[in-house]
């Protein structure tokens, strides 16, 4: 190795630390405008750093895509949290905690080796626990044991899996190569240099359990609705949008370092995904609390990604991989938007029961527009990210039509579409009708800046589809995008008008 890359890694670490310090110190600045601009500068610097890392081959495309998606979501959430804290009388440290949490999440995604991943992720879990318990203290309705369950289920299983991963990567590799590698040396190697270690099947449950719990798939899902519904809205957005994407990311990484008999694992994952879609979707449909509805639909949304992931492990192929990335991106975008949206609704009206909430378009017009866009992404209307992920999944499913895996995938796609339409049509009612405002009206003026954050976040539904340009032939998708973006805007505009009129 020449000397240049070493200098560049020092330089990049330096810029990474600068970005971190800008973001974290921004919370000590009193001027709001300065605070917002510092945050934006910091996160953009972080994005540039991760791009530079990718260009210099320090991280691979999976890390880049996941970190970019997270950063896109994190910036509006972080800005949103400033006013959210003061309006809801949360402790002044909440924006700082959220920033710290976001940085750790991004670091976990861009870390190219197991050691950095383990450290940043474990810290993120602890801060997540703090955020959920903070939410418990402030929650009007909801569980009071959510944080303990979160700690037990999500964190414990994650640690279990993490140490299995370390065990597999270190000992299997060492025994396979019959060399005397330093343990730390193995942990610092990038994932793609680790090689594929032969792993016995009995280790597979241990390798998967943490990520299955992280993505809240069915046998290990029960911690999620409580945790995500009591956490403060920006924290819920990050927990639900970004942190559960970790489950998918983790399994992808496991598949890079451990070689198991994948057909068994893949079928298990696909069936878990299918059950999660149906269970989460139906549970979500009968919820009255808006945040719980969203939390259950997270189970369903991740179930869809999990099903595609299982299919990817079985079949491979760039189409399936793109479908997977886009389904994760779509879920991240729309779920974070919804959580911020319902957070604003709770802020203004004082409640989040979706059978009571009505007429939000009249109180929160911009956030409602964002909600519509997110809704379309969830329901899979062209050209949103949700649609393109479903389209690609269908297209890749039919390549081996009569096989069992293809049938499971098609069944998952159909049930995902049906449940998301059911949930969407139930959720969208909060925008119609006559509004209920329990608090005084000036509140609605003060939350205007937060609404812009939600709107910016919802634009992810239209921007994430462009991720496809990284992987596939662009022509067909550009046509699709161009033809359908106008109707979509017309549609949103007209829904908006319909709700705004009597």
């Amino acid at each position, binding site marked *: 190795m020449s000397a240049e890359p070493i200098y560049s890694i020092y330089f990049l670490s330096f810029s990474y630390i600068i970005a971190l310090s800008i973001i974290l110190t921004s919370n000590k600045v009193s001027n709001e405008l300065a605070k917002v601009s510092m945050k934006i500068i910091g996160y953009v610097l972080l994005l540039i750093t991760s791009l530079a890392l990718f260009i210099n081959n320090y991280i691979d495309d999976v890390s880049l895509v996941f970190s970019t998606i997270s950063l896109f979501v994190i910036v509006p959430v972080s800005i949103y949290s400033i006013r959210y804290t003061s309006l809801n009388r949360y402790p002044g440290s909440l924006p700082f905690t959220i920033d710290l949490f976001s940085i750790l999440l991004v670091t976990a995604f861009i870390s190219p080796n197991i050691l950095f991943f383990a450290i940043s992720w474990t810290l993120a879990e602890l801060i997540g626990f703090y955020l959920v318990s903070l939410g418990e203290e402030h929650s009007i309705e909801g569980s009071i044991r959510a944080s303990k369950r979160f700690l037990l289920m999500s964190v414990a299983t994650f640690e279990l899996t993490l140490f299995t991963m370390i065990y597999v990567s270190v000992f299997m590799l060492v025994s396979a190569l019959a060399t005397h590698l330093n343990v730390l040396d193995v942990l610092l190697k990038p994932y793609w240099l680790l090689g594929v270690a032969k792993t016995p099947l009995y280790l597979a449950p241990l390798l998967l359990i943490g990520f299955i719990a992280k993505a809240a798939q069915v046998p290990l899902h029960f911690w999620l609705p409580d945790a995500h519904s009591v956490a403060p809205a920006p924290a819920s957005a990050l927990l639900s949008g970004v942190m559960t994407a970790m489950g998918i990311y983790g399994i992808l990484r496991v598949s890079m370092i451990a070689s198991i008999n994948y057909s068994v694992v893949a079928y298990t994952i696909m069936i878990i995904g299918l059950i999660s879609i149906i269970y989460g979707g139906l549970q979500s449909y009968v919820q009255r609390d808006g945040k719980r509805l969203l939390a259950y639909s997270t189970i369903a949304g991740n179930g869809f990604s999990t099903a595609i992931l299982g299919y990817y492990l079985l079949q491979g192929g760039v189409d399936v991989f793109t479908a997977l990335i886009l389904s994760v991106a779509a879920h991240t975008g729309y779920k974070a938007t919804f959580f911020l949206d319902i957070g604003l609704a709770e802020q203004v009206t004082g409640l989040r029961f979706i059978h009571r909430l009505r007429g939000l378009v009249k109180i929160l017009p911009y956030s409602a527009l964002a909600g519509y866009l997110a809704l379309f992404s969830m329901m899979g209307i*062209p050209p949103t990210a949700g649609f393109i992920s479903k389209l690609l999944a269908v297209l890749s499913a039919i390549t081996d039509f009569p096989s069992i895996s293809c049938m499971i995938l098609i069944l998952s796609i159909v049930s995902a579409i049906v449940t998301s339409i059911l949930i969407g*049509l139930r959720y969208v009612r909060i925008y119609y009708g006559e509004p209920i405002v329990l608090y005084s009206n000036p509140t609605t003026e003060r939350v205007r800046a937060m609404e812009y954050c939600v709107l910016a976040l919802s634009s992810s539904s239209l921007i994430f589809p462009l991720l496809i340009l990284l992987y596939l*032939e662009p022509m*067909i998708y550009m*046509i*699709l995008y161009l*033809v359908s973006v106008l109707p979509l805007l017309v549609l949103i505009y*007209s829904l908006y008008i319909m709700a705004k009129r009597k």
Partner: protein
Amino acid sequence: MEMVVARYIYWFILFLLILVANISPDRRRRLSRILRSIAYLSIWVPLILGVLQIDYLQVFFVTLCSIACLAISLYSEGYLRILFGRIAPLQFIIDSTLVLLVMFFTAYNLIELVVLWISIEILGFILILIERGIGNWNIATKYLILCATTGDISLFTWLAVVSLNLGIEKGLLAGFNELAFMGISVNPFVTFLLLIGFTTKLGQIPLHFWLVDTYSEAPSVSTAIFSGLMSKMAVYGILRLYYTISLDINIFMYLLLIQGLITAIYGFLMTSAQTDVKKLLAYSSMGHYGVMTMFMSFLPVLGEVALVIMYIYVLYHGIVKTQVFLNTGSIELLANTREIYRLGYLSRIAKETYFSVVLGFLSLIGIPPTLGFLIKFLIVAIAFQLLTYGEFYSFALLIGVVFLSIFSIVYAIKYLSVYTGSYTGEAYRPVISLEDTQLISERMLALSLLIVPVIPLIKLALPYNLVIAIIYVLGLLVLIVSLLMYRSAFIREADVWLGGVEA
């Protein structure tokens, strides 16, 4: 590639015209009207010049679009102004739906077709909500779940089949004319999946119940779009499917034939039991869709002839249903009710609409110079031709036509009694005069029913061409003479005594 760019530029210009026309349609009425007319009339330019790769399957749908879109857009202006006092936001929704329909019928490849179909279906959801808002929520949801979901099943299966055979890039980007030569064939089950969405959109029997609710509860302008144009998307879809993929012939024929026959009988029978003008017309639409579906099932047997007749049927049904559904809007505005037995004597306060609605129903019954006669004549002729292929086909089609003819007379008389019958109920409110654009629109559609038969007579090789031409000319003469006699011999009363409304 240049054609792709040309088409996109054309679509963009259409959208731009509509956008500019709807910036302030209430303050600059004339400008808005002119721009919208230019947009919809501009469809004739590529049709006549033969650019934009519009092929033989699309021509008649595009022709229908240009006539119906202009009429609907003009009518909705008056309709919305009377209802809401201004047309500003809602007219844009209607106009953009119409433009999307034009785009749909000029789509060149599968991916454009699918995307536009989905967009239009969801805009249909909005069109149902346009007048009553959340009051129509359940109906809109029923429409979305039943009609749009099954439609998507078929579309995605279509996408899947094509991309499975040709690869994603080529399959979705290749034009329909190229796809036709690829020789893609599918098994019976896939054929069923491919057809079910389109027949549901046409309200065929097992999944028909969304249709009547949607048609009768949506505002009249939206219903005109639904019945006149959106249902034709499904016809276009089936025709396109038939000519690009070799389907399983048995499933294709028997599914469409049986569904169509049952729907035709059920739909036309139900017309006579209705007391609501819109429900009556909704069932009549359903019956006509049944006959259409039945007719499409003969494509493998009859070939080109069935296609030609399908074209005329589409043109006829599109124009006439647009007209009569717009007319129900007029009735609702004039008399504030749609109950047939509470209405009467509307001919006295709305002479202009009376004239056009009579022409419309002459066409629905099938009286000579109108387009309705042409299509009925052709169907009967074809029914006898079918005897050579199989008695069952011929018999089924004849049953359909008999129900069509008999019940169209029944419901036409019932509907026209709204204009001519005597008054029976209480008066609600003073009469509102309709806007000029509404009258122009209705009259335009009625006249086009008389003029349009010329196009197929000249352009297409119809069977019995000469006979039809002679009957057309004679019928036109009779109509003109009777109009002149009506003008000179009609006795006008000095005081108009109104039914349904107070003077």
